[in-house]
């Protein structure tokens, strides 16, 4: 699931939820967001949190429903500083970026709300 992207050119995730695996990975994703018009949804998650795990299949369904939106997953333990930068205080937290800037966020298991804001921001 997902792969390492070494070039900053826009990528099509095509329904995949990409798990960020390294610092460079994250920098690349952020750069991608800044240089494209695509909506990016960041799923800040943790494997020890029930609510976070609950959302995994939901996020996959959303990625399938909106293939023009980039979905990335960031483990808050592996990337504590990124989580801190985005002031993630509870999980799951979904941050929606456009052009590298946060436009909305959804905190918690809120399927309807996440669907609504994705639909609103994707164009």
């Amino acid at each position, binding site marked *: 699931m997902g792969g390492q992207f070494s070039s900053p050119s826009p990528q099509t995730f095509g329904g995949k939820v990409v798990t960020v695996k390294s610092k460079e990975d994250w920098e690349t994703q952020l750069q991608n967001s800044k240089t494209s018009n695509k909506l990016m949804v960041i799923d800040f998650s943790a494997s020890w949190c029930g609510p976070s795990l609950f959302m995994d299949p939901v996020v996959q369904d959303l990625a399938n429903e909106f293939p023009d939106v980039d979905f990335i997953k960031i483990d808050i333990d592996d990337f504590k500083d990124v989580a801190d930068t985005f002031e993630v205080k*509870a999980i799951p937290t979904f941050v929606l970026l456009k052009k590298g800037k946060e436009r909305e966020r959804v905190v918690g298991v809120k399927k*309807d709300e996440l669907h609504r804001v994705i639909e609103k921001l994707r164009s």
Partner: protein
Amino acid sequence: MLPIISLGCLTPHALSPTLSLSITKPPYNTPLPPLLYSTNPKHNPTNTHNLSMAVSGFEGFEKRLELQFSSHDPVTGIGLRQLDFKSLEQVLHQVQCTVVSALGNQHFDSYVLSESSLFVYPTKIIIKTCGTTQLLKSVQPFINHARTLNLHIIALRYTRGSFIFPQAQPYPHTSFHEEIVYLEDSIPHHLCYRKASVIPSKLTSHSWHVFSAGAVEYPDDVPYTVEVCMTDLDQTLARKFFRHPNDGKNGDSAGREMTGLTGINRINPNAQICDFAFEPCGYSMNGLDRDCYSTIHVTPEHGFSYASFECLGSMYNDMADMVKKAVKVFGPATVSVATTNASDDVCMRIKGAVEQLGMKCRSCSMDVVPAAGMVVFQTFTTRRKRI
């Protein structure tokens, strides 16, 4: 002096404890005026004129269960948080409720349910449900699931107020006696320190029911809990918890709006909130602040309006101030506050805070239960209200 009805004995013996009925008068810290009514120990004190209501409304008063576990392993890790969602759903299905929203942090997971809340800590489960849910049916499944994680139960506490519509409750919630029998059958023998108690107030419609069982009579390090029940909510304030037709919102966004508009977000500004607004009315929220949970549930309909606020005590928060802010959100005519293992100071501060809102303390009664400590039950009504 208000008598406490204590059902059940403390028996540290290895044989199963016996259940007996007795009326005891434990020592009180503050002298009380004479009794205005007497309680028959054989039945649940209820508001008798509700029994003549042909149709019952939604029961806001919750049943609350707290299960404390211990690990055989030297390192517990995330303990009960390992329970997968399928297992949790299985248990919730037996109680007839479903997950509506959820949120977690480093310390615990919280779930907003169709009929209240669930909190999962590494070694503790708290589940609180309203309506006509059969909460006690979750006891054995939770104990069994925990066992698969090498966790064994060491304490159980069941609490509730008095139902507005007791006749509408299904088995085993048809009476406190029935609940006690069911609980005694559901818990292992090693929880040998047990006590059941009905703590009365001056209001026949408001008693506090406690069943506590533990492997240790006086455990260390038990945090305190505050459970606030509010009835006869101010109608203008209660209206804020009704959805507007065609508002273009979903339960999540409507819930978030209610949290802001009503000032619930200001009760504890440090808490992360997971909220939800039900259709056509009703609201629930869970708050997460470090390792402390808080939870609010609202049944706003006139005639049986109800709101609850519950919070775990912490040295970081001013509990009395939070209780005051919560009560102010709803403007109830009657408030009951039950604290478990709270200091006299906390109880007095809460009393003072509620009185600052213009309410009058009508009663203060208490009882000591094993594995949980002192339970203090205070009731307040607006000054206009006659009892």
